[in-house]
């Protein structure tokens, strides 16, 4: 990963290209670490330009701590859910912390049982935070569950918010290496 960052005196135009480059390096790096490769895709590669060429939409919403707000509320993920749990069981576990705006409990496509995770949406950060703090590492139907915010501030979210540009990484910046 490139651990140096270019000081951008003209924010805007080339931000995306720069982000892309750093991210590509990250992914390229872990791919190069792999020692066991398998599959026809290594010889038969499609052009990925159409996927990567344009900018992706993001939600420009609040953040708090490390958490990122979604369009309508704060979404938490719960993992380790018992395969025979139901929406009611999950809802009951979290009902004390606020009105659950939305709950997604997906099933395993092969077995038809619960896959093991749920997404729950709360209106306020406080409610979501309390639900996480109170329920992480507790039991539900005899299994330990884990709770966390589903969405977080990214590495490059500070690049998007103009105000914090100067404080992006507390170390010297130098020109990032160009891609060859």
């Amino acid at each position, binding site marked *: 990963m490139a651990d140096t960052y270019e000081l951008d005196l003209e924010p805007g135009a080339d931000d995306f290209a720069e982000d892309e480059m750093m*991210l590509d390096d*990250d*992914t390229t790096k*872990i*791919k190069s*670490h*792999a*020692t*066991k*490769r*398998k*599959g*026809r*895709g*290594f010889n*038969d590669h*499609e052009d990925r330009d*159409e*996927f990567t060429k*344009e*900018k*992706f*939409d*993001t*939600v420009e919403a609040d953040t708090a701590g*490390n958490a*990122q707000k*979604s*369009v*309508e509320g704060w*979404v938490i*993920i719960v*993992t380790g859910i018992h395969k025979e749990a139901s929406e009611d069981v999950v809802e009951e576990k979290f009902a004390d912390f606020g009105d659950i705006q*939305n709950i*997604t409990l*997906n099933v*395993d*496509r*092969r077995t038809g049982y619960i*896959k*093991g*995770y749920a*997404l729950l*949406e709360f209106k306020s950060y406080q409610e979501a935070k309390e639900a996480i703090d109170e329920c992480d590492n507790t039991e539900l139907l005899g299994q330990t569950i*884990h*709770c*966390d*915010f*589903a*969405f*977080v*501030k*990214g*590495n490059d*979210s500070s690049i998007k918010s103009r105000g914090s540009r100067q404080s992006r990484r507390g170390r010297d910046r130098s020109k990032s290496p160009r891609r060859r």
Partner: protein
Amino acid sequence: MSDEFYVRYYVGHMGRFGHEFLEFEFRPDGKLRYANNSNYKNDSMIRKEVYVSKTVMNELKRIVEESEIMKEDDKLWPLADKVGRQELEIVYGDEHISFTTSKLGSLIDVQESEDPEGMRVFYYLIQDLKCFVFSLISSHFKIKPI
């Protein structure tokens, strides 16, 4: 080591409405990117990105691990054709798979293939991954991703 994880899935075809495809990837730093390009009725491309937490990445890792997809191989799977193409690329620690195959309409295609066991693993994993991604994207952006 825990960050050596990357997942990308693509399904698409060239047809009457141009190149129509759905693609998503989870990068090692938690960046989830999703694109769905359906040109039907001049729909424009949906392109969304969001960073997911470590817990989400760990759940994705669990789904991949429990599927045992890394043990499979695409060498006997049907080749991508005019009807379409699927690609699944995963980096998990020191293992890197990049599988390609045709679109699979139903379980019958799976059963009739030369590697029904491997294809079944792929078939169900893809469904579970799509389900996971659609739920994440729709809960964050409040859109129907398909």
